[in-house]
């Protein structure tokens, strides 16, 4: 079971309940819901919000690839995975990403949840522009795209 979405913050906010509902099943004994939120400082600068930019088609493609790899590389076959990522401006404390996983046992749930977020950081075309209290803003530097076929 897999669902992945990019949600425009002007239209719809990320909600943990959506994730709980999707992964809920008596097939699984362990579930983990990870959420990332906008924090108030970065690199000694006071942050008041972040704009997320996404290449929607490539992001969804990367989420799909990461999900499939979890079966092949991690050998976690029975699972439910839910990924929501925000785009647009988010205020402090708002949720930018939810990764919810459900597996038979806790070991595989922890491995899967960590694997997904680390791969997203490396491979999904998502960019952050931080907005500071002095009214300046900056795109965060990031890392060159690592592609599975490179």
């Amino acid at each position, binding site marked *: 079971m897999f669902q992945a979405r990019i949600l425009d913050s002007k239209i719809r906010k990320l909600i943990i309940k959506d994730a709980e509902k999707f992964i809920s099943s008596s097939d699984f004994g362990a579930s983990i819901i990870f959420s*990332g939120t906008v924090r108030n400082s970065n690199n000694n600068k006071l942050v008041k919000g972040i704009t*997320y*930019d*996404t*290449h929607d*088609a*490539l992001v969804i*493609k990367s989420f799909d690839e990461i999900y499939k790899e979890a079966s092949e590389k991690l050998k976690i076959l029975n699972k439910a995975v839910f990924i929501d*990522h925000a785009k647009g401006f988010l205020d402090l404390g708002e949720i*930018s*990403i939810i990764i919810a996983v459900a597996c038979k046992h806790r070991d595989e749930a922890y491995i899967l949840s960590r694997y997904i*977020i680390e791969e*997203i*950081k*490396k*491979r*999904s*075309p*998502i*960019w*952050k522009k931080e907005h500071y209290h002095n009214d300046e803003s900056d*795109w*965060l*530097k*990031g*890392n*060159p*795209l690592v*592609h599975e*076929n*490179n």
Partner: protein
Amino acid sequence: MNIKIELFGAARDFSKQNILELNVENNSSLRDIRAKMIEYIKKNFSNNENYIKIINSSAFSSKENIIISDNYKITNNEKIAIIPPIGGG
């Protein structure tokens, strides 16, 4: 021929629009497009080194959403996307 480059992340600062349109030689490769973009930055942003660094460290994708190599041949009116260094999540 004309090509369109969809801008994302830090590359959005290259233009007030979401797309950069360039006129390039027929049969240009992605390598030629990078060079043309750097030329555009030198001309319009007084040689902005950060912008040039972004172009050199970016990946590009085709309209089929496949990451393309520097040898990829661009066709007339093709729309590609620049994928600057990423850092979301």
